[in-house]
């Protein structure tokens, strides 16, 4: 094995087989997907696999998975608050459960269980509400109390020492963590195998609209004629929508995250606290992967701040005081497109041929598979699937918002 590697290094890795090819750009495609993250690539994969539509281009301005898909804290779950949300994310979890088999790629989905802590009466009441809504949709979630939490996370301080002691939690066994890069690469490799063209370092600079219909896309590498464009650019989606004169109910906020040095395995579940504004898990490398809420103002910068990591550390140490001497290895940020109701915006818009798969905020990665599958269905059938109908763009005109803030994030 090592001799082969040395030989390959000496001839510049010419004999390695690329996982996805660099195809020449055509001057027209049936479908152009802007955004090479998990949503864009999953849509391309399902268009090809479920509908036989392969004249598709995925345009990514950087390298695939360089946006939110490469920056999230890898949590997969379906323990949401609304029946619409629960049904939707549950389909995603089920797709994730079979993804390694479907893509023939080890995505390392570890369904280790997910705890959302409640530190006061009203939180506990909300956890009970979520448990009931989950169970009604056939999703496994239930309320547990400190005696059971102790068995799941023995290192958590469940005494009355913390400022906000733990009263109970929503326990969601199907939740877990995954290797996010593997999901992106698995979808990209399979889509490419089926004939989809993936164009990296290709930035969309304009979209032409004639008589309220999309006719083409301009990029830094040339113009593409097309009548169907999908905006799957998350934090940058307002800039793309602006190209067709469409305004979105979206505010771009950075979301920071960090990892610690590797530690021996001690945390078997994913732990989330809305009151303490953090979520954390221990990766297969032993690192603690931690995150909190979005930065508190509109920004397109992905800088890391001291106030983020100080605030997060202080809150985590409330519940895990034994981690006080652990070192932070790395800190980073990504951009999140926040909607007023913390639910996505999917489907048709007033501009014909311009479709949206945006508004993913801080809860987009877990929805990659179901979004890809249902957006592919929407594109192929020209009809909105019932599962994603509640997330239409026109709900901001009718007032039928799908309020998921409490279950989607740990924000204030």
């Amino acid at each position: 094995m090592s001799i082969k590697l040395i030989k390959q290094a000496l001839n510049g890795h010419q004999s390695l087989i690329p996982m996805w090819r660099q195809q020449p750009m055509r001057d027209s495609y049936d479908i152009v997907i802007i955004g090479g993250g998990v949503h864009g690539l999953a849509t391309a994969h399902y268009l090809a696999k479920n509908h036989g539509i392969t004249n598709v281009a995925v345009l990514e301005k950087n390298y695939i998975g360089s946006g939110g898909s490469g920056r999230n804290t890898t949590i997969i779950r379906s323990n949401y608050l609304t029946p619409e949300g629960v049904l939707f994310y549950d389909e995603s979890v089920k797709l994730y459960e079979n993804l390694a088999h479907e893509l023939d790629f080890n995505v390392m989905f570890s369904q280790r269980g997910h705890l959302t802590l409640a530190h006061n009466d009203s939180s506990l009441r909300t956890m009970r509400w979520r448990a009931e809504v989950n169970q009604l949709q056939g999703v496994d979630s239930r309320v547990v109390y400190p005696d059971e939490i102790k068995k799941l996370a023995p290192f958590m301080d469940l005494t009355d020492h913390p400022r906000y002691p733990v009263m109970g939690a929503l326990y969601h066994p199907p939740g877990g963590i995954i290797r996010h890069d593997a999901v992106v690469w698995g979808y990209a490799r399979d889509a490419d195998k089926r004939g989809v063209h993936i164009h990296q370092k290709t930035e969309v600079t304009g979209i032409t609209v004639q008589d309220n219909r999309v006719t083409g896309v301009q990029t830094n590498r040339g113009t593409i004629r097309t009548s169907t464009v999908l905006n799957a650019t998350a934090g940058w989606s307002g800039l793309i929508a602006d190209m067709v004169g469409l305004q979105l109910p979206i505010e771009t906020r950075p979301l920071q995250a960090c990892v610690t040095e590797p530690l021996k395995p001690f945390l078997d579940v994913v732990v989330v606290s809305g009151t303490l504004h953090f979520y954390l898990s221990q990766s297969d490398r032993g690192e603690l992967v931690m995150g909190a809420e979005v930065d508190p103002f509109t920004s397109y910068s992905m800088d890391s701040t001291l106030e983020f990591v100080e605030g997060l550390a202080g809150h985590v140490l409330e519940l895990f005081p034994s981690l006080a001497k652990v070192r932070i290895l790395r800190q980073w940020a990504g951009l999140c497109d926040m909607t007023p109701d913390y639910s996505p915006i999917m489907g048709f818009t007033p501009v014909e041929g311009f479709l949206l798969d945006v508004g993913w905020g801080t809860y987009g990665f877990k929805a990659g598979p179901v979004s890809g599958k249902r957006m592919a269905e929407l594109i192929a059938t020209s009809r909105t699937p019932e599962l994603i109908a509640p997330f239409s763009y026109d709900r901001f005109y009718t007032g039928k918002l799908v309020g998921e803030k409490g279950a989607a994030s740990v924000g204030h």
Partner: protein
Amino acid sequence: MLILTCPNCGERNITEFRFGGEIKRNSPKPEDGASDALLLANLYLKENRLGVQKEWWYHRAGCGIWFIAERHTKTQVVEQTYLWEPQP
């Protein structure tokens, strides 16, 4: 940590302030015949600009005034901060 200049108190750490949202221009008005649907959507639709944005800030851990900042949403350079004044 970013520094913001409160028109009242001077330069302070950004954590002393609360962001109050972008300042919208040309909002539809009922007296101009805007429909209910348009008025409702306007509550939610945003410019979300990548560039210099006019926005509200509130000095929550200080004097408590609301003021306007003109800040570039990527470079974070704040061009100016000032109190709101009624337009003639």
